[in-house]
Structure formats: C-alpha cells, structure tokens
C-alpha cells in the first residue's frame, strides 16, 4: 500500500499489506495474519520442489539485476558436503530506493520467513542478513524479530520441529554503498574492505568464506512465502501480459511529486498511472521534466519517455532505461539537470572502492569536468571528453559502479544537452564558484 499514504485503488497490495500495522511486527501478530504458513509448507517439501515452484512463479531479483530467483537457487551445488550460506542483501543504498527499509520496519517476520525458506531450499543452515549501518531502526526491529522467532521455535536448531537448523545472523554495515554489490558484501561480512570480487568464481561456487553462497535482496525474499502459500500460478498471474515480468513490485517514489512514498503495483502497470494517479503528479504549478526510474544507476528518461512506458523489466528497457531497484527519482521543470548529474557523479566518486582505474579516475574526472561546466568554465570539447570517459567506464570494470556513473552522464547529455550548452556558452549563471 502507498505507505505512508492510504492505499491507492490501482495498487496491488501483497508485500505492503501490513505496512503501518504495528501489530504485524510481532511474531504472534504475524502468525495471526497468516505468517509462517509459507515456511511450514516449505519444510514439508523437498528443496527441489521449492526451487521449481519459485522458478515457475517467474520471480526475478528485486535488488536491481532482475535475475530469475529460482534459477539462481538451482546453481547451488547438491551433496557437496560443504557449508552453504544465504546472504540477505539489506544494504539498501541505491539513491531513490527506500522499500526494503519498510519491509524490515513493518514486516520483519515476512523477511525472516522468506530467508528461512530460501536457506532450506539451497541447503544453508545459516543466513547472514546484511543491514546498512545507518538503518538503526530496522536493525533493532530485525534483531528483535530474530530473537522472537528463535524463542518461538520457528528458527534456530530445529525450525518448527522439522529437525532443520536455520540460523539467522544480523550483520551491520558501516557506511559503504559498494557493499550492496554482492561480492563486496561477502568481503564485508568476512571483515574486509568492501571491494567487489572478480567473477568467476560465482558465489554459488565460491562465495562467503569460500563456500557456496546465494545472495538475495530483501524484497525478493519477502515475496517467497506468498509464492509458497498461494502458488506459482497465482504469482505468475500478477502481470499485464508480459510473462517475463511477473508479480508485484514495490516502487519508491521521491523527488518532485505530491505524494512521495512506497507503492506496490503489478508488473506492467503504465508508468503514467504511477506518476500521476498514485504519486499525485508534480507540485502545484510545475510540470515533470525527467524520471530516473530504477535508482540513480540507470539512464535518465525524459518525461515523454516515462509517460509512454510500461512499468516492468522489459517495458522500461524499451524506453531506454532499466527497472533497477524501482527507486524512482522524479524531477520537475525547476530542476537543474547539469547540477543534479554532477551531484550523482559526486556520489559515485565518493563511493568508488577505487580498485579499478577506470572507475577510480573516471568517476573523479567526470565530477571535476561537470564542476568546471557548472562554474562557467566549460568548453565545447567537454561533451566529447565526458562521453569518451563514460565509454571507458562502461563494461570494463570488476563491478558496475562505474557504469552507473556513466549512465546519467551519457543519457543526460543526450537528452538535456541544451542545459549543458547554456552553462558552456554563458547564457546561464554559474551554479558553482570557480575552483
């Protein structure tokens, strides 16, 4: 539901049904709302049957990459005798995204249940839930929920009397965007700097502590109990004609809209309905100019492109961007696009782990060149320079942080070139003091 706003009739409420309902936070309250039925059912099935059900549902990773969840689970080796690990990615730090936070704050047991099902399905006895260090409230709530679930026998050494050990351990991050990247997260749990690892080996082969590991996002895992209880066919049916994008998706909307917050929609919902009906359109007297639909790491869409798009993995790609985490940053006609693209570049420059030259140097120089343009010292050659830099930052590094910095720069120059020109030609007053 449109937390913190009342549910909108065009929403399809599954994961967010109990947002704002404080009683749903406790174990008993959760059970009274049908909680832990999914885990009970899962424990009566074989791991293979669970993986098949999740595969059939069409569930794809909600953290940004959109990889099929069941398929990911099926990569885990069987009968290898090694400890397996599940890692729940609760590092939510993609600018524009604030949905996992609400799942943890309001329905912590939904997440624990999803983690427990996934752990059982991949043969893991232990799940590390990696929560970003700044999420002090979700950390506290999740820690309390783990304690309660252990005390009630739902988790721990003998989950619901099944004889299965399912341990949940909460690991607090300490302020590093890059730790949301799955291999950086594993390093961080191991007590290392959060540097992403070269793949292969993929985590299912050699992941956390060198053991077979699966990493899933909070929202992905929270959807799993619903699939177990209501079935893959029900979940698959939650779409609007595109069988590749199924289920519901939480969307975080922020920036220049009347009602920022989280909304839950079926895949394939027209983006226009989300922007105008649910989020209430632009502030009074303003018009939308641009939308970054999937967290800051995806190409910027013009409002014309956004209004024309269907909100699912393929629908957003068809209009030149990506669904990503569905953290939607909406900008109205008061926005200085050059300034905001610079601010994003500065974000990536700050968050680069600095392992790869293209990223370490590229994010820093992109920021400096944009600063030069904003201070009125830009040159015509800067367009070519920025695009050349971006080209060298795309597809050439260990992880995609540098690609993410290039995305808004390239799409920004493509779609809002006149705003860059205005600074370069001096028809717009410098926004930054010359450095």
């Amino acid at each position, binding site marked *: 539901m449109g937390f913190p706003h009342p549910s909108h009739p065009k929403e399809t409420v599954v994961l967010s049904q109990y947002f704002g309902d404080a009683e749903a936070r406790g174990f008993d309250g959760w059970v009274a709302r049908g909680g832990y039925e999914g885990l009970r059912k899962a424990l009566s099935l074989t791991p293979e049957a669970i993986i098949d059900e999740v595969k059939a549902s069409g569930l794809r990773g909600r953290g940004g990459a959109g990889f099929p969840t069941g398929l990911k689970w099926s990569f885990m080796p069987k009968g290898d005798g090694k*400890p397996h690990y599940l890692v729940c990615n609760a590092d*939510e*730090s*993609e*600018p*524009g*995204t*604030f949905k996992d*936070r609400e799942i943890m704050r309001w329905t912590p047991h939904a997440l624990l249940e999803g983690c427990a099902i996934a752990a059982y399905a991949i043969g893991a006895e232990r799940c590390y839930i990696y929560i*970003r*260090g*700044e*999420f*002090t*409230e979700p950390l506290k709530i999740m820690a309390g929920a783990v304690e309660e679930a252990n005390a009630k026998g739902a988790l721990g050494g003998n989950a619901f009397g099944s004889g299965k050990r399912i341990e949940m*351990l909460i*690991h*607090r*991050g*300490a*302020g*590093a*965007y890059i730790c949301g990247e799955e291999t950086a997260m594993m390093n*961080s*749990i*191991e*007590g*290392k*700097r*959060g540097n992403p690892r070269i793949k292969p080996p993929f985590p299912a082969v050699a992941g956390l*502590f060198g053991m077979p590991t699966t990493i899933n996002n909070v929202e992905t895992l929270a959807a799993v109990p619903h699939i177990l209880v209501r079935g893959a066919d029900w979940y698959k049916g939650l779409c609007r004609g595109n069988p590749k994008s199924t289920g519901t998706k939480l969307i*975080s*909307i*922020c*920036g*220049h809209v009347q009602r*920022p*917050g*989280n909304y839950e929609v079926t895949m394939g919902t027209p983006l226009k309905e989300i922007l105008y009906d649910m989020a209430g359109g632009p502030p009074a007297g303003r018009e939308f100019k641009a939308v970054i639909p999937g967290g*800051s790491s995806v190409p910027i869409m013009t409002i014309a492109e956004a209004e024309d798009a269907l909100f699912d993995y393929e629908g957003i790609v068809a209009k030149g961007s990506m669904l990503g985490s569905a*953290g939607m*940053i909406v*900008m109205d006609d008061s*926005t200085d696009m050059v300034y*905001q693209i610079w*601010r*994003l570049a500065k*974000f990536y420059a*700050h*968050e680069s*782990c600095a392992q790869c030259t293209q990223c370490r140097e590229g994010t820093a120089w992109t920021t400096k060149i944009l600063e030069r343009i904003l201070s009125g010292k830009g040159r015509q050659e800067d367009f070519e320079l920025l695009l050349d830099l971006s080209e060298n930052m795309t597809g050439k590094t260990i992880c995609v942080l540098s690609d993410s910095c290039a995305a808004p720069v390239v799409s920004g120059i493509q779609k809002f070139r006149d705003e860059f020109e205005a600074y370069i030609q001096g028809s717009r007053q410098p926004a930054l003091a010359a450095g």
Partner: protein
Amino acid sequence: MSSQGAGTQTAPHEPVFVGQTRARLEHLFTRYPTKQACLLPALWMVQEARGWISEPAIGEVADVLGLTPAYVKGVVTFYTMYHTHPVGRHFIQVCTTSPCNICGAEAVVQALLAESGCGELGATSSDGRFTVSEVECLGACGFATPIMVDDDFIESVTPDKVSGILERYP
C-alpha cells in the same frame, strides 16, 4: 617528525575488550567461521564505547582478532561510519544526494551548520556538542531531508525545524 609532537599529552589506552564487552566479542566468535569476520562488529563495539576509533584501539582490535594493525586500519578507513578522530557529543549526518538535493537538502545543511555552531562540515562546535557531516544517500529519499543525530533517524527535516531538533540534544 613525530605526529605526536612534544607537549601532546596522550592518555594511555584503556582496553575496550574486557569484562562484558569481551564476553560479547567471545559470543560473536561463535557466529562466524573466522575471527576476522568479527572485525566490523568489533569496530562498532569500540566506537560505541569510546565514540571513535583511535590508533591504540586499532592495535587492540588487531590483537584480539589476530590481525595486523595496518590491516585493521585499512578496513576502518574504508567505511565512512567509523570515526578516526574524536567528534562532537552528538554526531549529525545529513543526506545531500540527488533525491534530497532536489528537495532542498543543501539549505538543511546550511541551517545545521549555523544553528549547531559548527560553521563548517566536519568541524566540531566550540562547546564540543555537535559535529555535522554531509553524507551520501541515507535510504529515506521519500522523506527528504533525512538526517541522523547519533542513532536517531529523523525524516522530513526542513531548515525551520533544525533548531527544534538540536534542542533535543544537549
């Protein structure tokens, strides 16, 4: 030249990992297959106890986890939430990344710097009460501008709310 110049009185390091804190650490050892994996939690424990992570504390952490001080320092400096120098009694983090930026976060920073008496980012007010730090995305973009004062997460901060918020932190 030594960085600890003549006349600088450095109090001897009181160990952090004794008594209950030591017991908490020992319990953590059972939750990870390696001692090294306890590094982030151990650093949190130091910061909780001392407010920041000093060089001698880095040495102590290295010692209890069987790591080298250089390695521990490398990790401490990677993560922005660990303080490598003393900060004010109340540490304020304010988000200025794009989603908050377009909603007026920079004005919130200015109000915080002025009202706290810090004057500039990273500086501590002369009464030792506040340090203000500009940070990247706090993950509450729909509630611009979010700030953190110590462990309190405060949403929808606007410049006019700043003085009222600061009053709650003597």
